[in-house]
């Protein structure tokens, strides 16, 4: 089974899914990442990451909300699962603790 570590892109996608609550599907996620993180990724990459995250248990998904623009197809909607929340919290905690551990001198050296 795949590891439960979060890759950088995975974390970005997971967070985006969380921000888009209940409207998180492929195109929307791609557009959100493009506007918020100013980063272009292809739709197939988005889907691949989503699939991987779901396999790891960080995302739940369902089909809903067919529109005409999609040729009558439903959206594949994702929500962050409990495990997903946990892993996001965990990675945030690690970051925070690392940030706090940075001695003042390290970044203020020049000034």
């Amino acid at each position: 089974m795949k590891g439960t570590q979060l890759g950088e892109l995975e974390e970005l996608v997971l967070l985006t899914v969380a921000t888009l609550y209940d409207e998180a599907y492929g195109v929307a996620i791609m557009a959100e990442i493009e506007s918020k993180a100013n980063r272009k990724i292809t739709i197939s990459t988005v889907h691949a990451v989503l699939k991987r995250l779901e396999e790891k248990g960080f995302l739940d998904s369902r089909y809903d909300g067919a529109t005409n623009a999609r040729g009558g197809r439903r959206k594949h909607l994702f929500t962050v699962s409990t495990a997903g929340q946990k892993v996001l919290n965990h990675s945030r905690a690690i970051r925070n603790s690392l940030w706090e551990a940075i001695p003042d001198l390290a970044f203020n050296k020049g000034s």
Partner: protein
Amino acid sequence: MSNAGKIARFGVIRWLKKYCDDRLIEGICGDLEELYEIESSQYGSGKAKRKLYWRALGFYRQSFKRKRERYPTRFEALLRNYVKMTFRNGKRNRTSTVINIMGLTFGLTACVFLGQYVYTEWQHDKHFDDHESIYRLSLEMEFGDDLTSMAVSPSGLGKKAKEQIKFVENYAILRRFSNFKFRKDNELIETAFIFSANPGWNEVLNFQWQEGNSATALVEPRSIVLTERFALRIFRSSKNLVGRSLTQENGDVYTVTGIIKTPPKTSHIHPEAFISLGNAQLVDQMDIWRYCAYVKVDKRTPLDQFESVLDAFSLALFKDKGGNGRGRIFIRPQALADIHFTSKLAFEMEPNDGNTSYLTGFCILIVVLLFMSVINYINLTTAQVGQRFKEIAVKRTFGAFSADLRLQFLVETAIYVFLSLVFSILLVAALQSSFESFANLDFPWHDMLNLQSVVFIAGSIIVFTLLLGLYPSLYLSNFRPIKSNSESLARFRSVMLFLQLGLSMVVISCTTVFFAQMNFMSNQSLGYQKDQVLFIGLNQEQQEKVYPLMDALKTLTSVEQVASSYHVPGNPPPINNFGYESKDGSKKIVCPQIYVDNGFLETLDISILAGNNFIEHRLDDGKKIGVMINESFMNKAGWTLDNAVGQQLKSGISWEDRVIGVVPDFHFTSLHHAIAPMVVRPIARGHNLLIKAKTNDYGELISDIENEWKGMFGNGNVDFKFLDQHFQAQYETDEKRAQLFAIFSFLIIFIALSGLFGMTTYAVQRRMKEMSIRKIHGASIKQILFLMTKAYGISGTIAAIVGGVLSYILMAHWLSDFAYSIDLNAFLIAMPAVVMILLVLVIAGAKSAKLAFVNPSETLRNE
């Protein structure tokens, strides 16, 4: 989903639906559709469609692939397990894996090369359409008790056969001109492969026409049809040449009327160009005996019927007696594809060096090579049984049937074969071009791309795999750990090893004898001194000035003697018939004759046994100087050294010559031909110069000759060859074959010895503890080495004896085919035997030395 969307009709989406997982496809297609909608309103539908295609291609990844929602079947799971076990065991027993794969790879590679050689040889003349129904008509003539077979026949024979025999559909007559020179600017382009042919020759021997009309190309006199290669040599192009003209050295102008594809090397003729007959009436004349006649017969004609019809035809045509004491003439049809192998007649257009016994030899080598690697594989695999019986026992405990285990070992074998195949394909690819240039063949790969050969190759690989794997799989699958049968297995393995060693012995000693014979042939005294002799082919201008040239050359300090001749040693001389009177009436001898001048004997160090040399005579006026004969002629005629000189010889209708001298027998051509009676006739203005050097300093000699040439002809381009090298060229095909044999025999021995090495490795592993205990009880190193190598020594010795006897019989038979052969003494067989036994002992001993020096406390620590 009432509305399937706009993109659903695109091919890429339809494929994607097949490829992607069902659970994901709706979301993916929906997203694609959405993006397509946005983009088509932005950029228009064309660009949007392109973008869609690129985007959709991004979904062809493993993670979106439709999963088969089922567990692997039992068979799949087993297969996966077999593959895994193969690699694990392979890694564990590295020695035997390497030896097995190496042996199989070398074996297969060698087979590919040998197979190519054999196949190409068999392809000779099979590129002609309907080659099965094309025959060459050779003649067998009776002269007294002699029967002379010859490839040439009267030029009218072909046409007569077509007119009078209903089977014969068409005919062709060919004559080779081996000395043609065409002018090109200031230089001369020489070719030895110009064939003159009748206008309809392409109906029988068809070539592939690039330009020109095959039916009319050789109708006009002085027409020439070029092969592409020769056209390139002359015109630097092979296109649009019809209508161009070519000037021969003597001023004759030929018109190009056609271009044909360069025919393959695999033929008994290698034409560079065809020219029309010098005289269109030749096809009706019966007195020019210089053409080879080919006929194409009706496909349904049985050969025996054709032969009997030819007999009657011949009797009607030639009667049962001719002039000069000629008796009956038999016309013998030679199947086109057989000529290369079997036809060694007088007046062949080109020497036919095909040899079916070599081909058989190569086929045997293929079988032996494969056999060796099969034995290696079987031996090494079954030797592993001790290590694998735990694996087998566990599998059995968990309910594996014998069939499963059998399959396991077959799969294992198939994996080994597959790996070796991959390696040998790489090896073949790497060595192909050097092999082709070495063996002088162009392998027709495109011929191999048909269903038949693919099936054949696949079939032989399957058979090979079964051969390798069947015994080990049967043996190992029935292996019962409790009922030990390792005894019988050991016996089986030693029988196999014995077979390998015996075969290696045969191969080694045959190769030795083979090389001894080759060496003997090239060093055999020919009856004259061919070293230190140069010869120079003269062109027409030079031939006219031959005497001033010879006089000038004779004055050089580096030159000992100069002679001119029409025939050069190493080229087959023509044959004539000579009549003489004996007390039993007039008799005939059919034998070669050479034309040489008075300096010839001295140049080649040939003595005169009786009588005198030719007198010096420089005028080409037909003065009767007399002829010399060799000893064989003298003996055959029943003369002695005392009375031979002064006898009269009669040849043809016009010559009547007195024998003025007798010379010892010498080999004018290669030792393939036995010494036969020969007549030496005088000539003025030979076509070749033979120059005997005084010293070995050829540099000085050559520069002296070039200076003379400059002085006399304005250029120093001397076309000289060393006689010994020229002579050696006759053995080139033989040497190539000998080297091929040697390489592959070496491979065979290598495979056998590597198998022995692998076996010893196992024996050493198995007997580690036994030998340690022996050491503790006081066995010396010598005793342990003796114990370990004894069995191999014994089986090696027996193999050497059996193999030696076998190869003695084989080689005695082989040598009997040669006119001149070495004495097959015991040493030639014994020496390889000793070498082989030593090799066996060294290999077994070197591996066992590890045992002899082992520290017993280390191996026995666990006990």
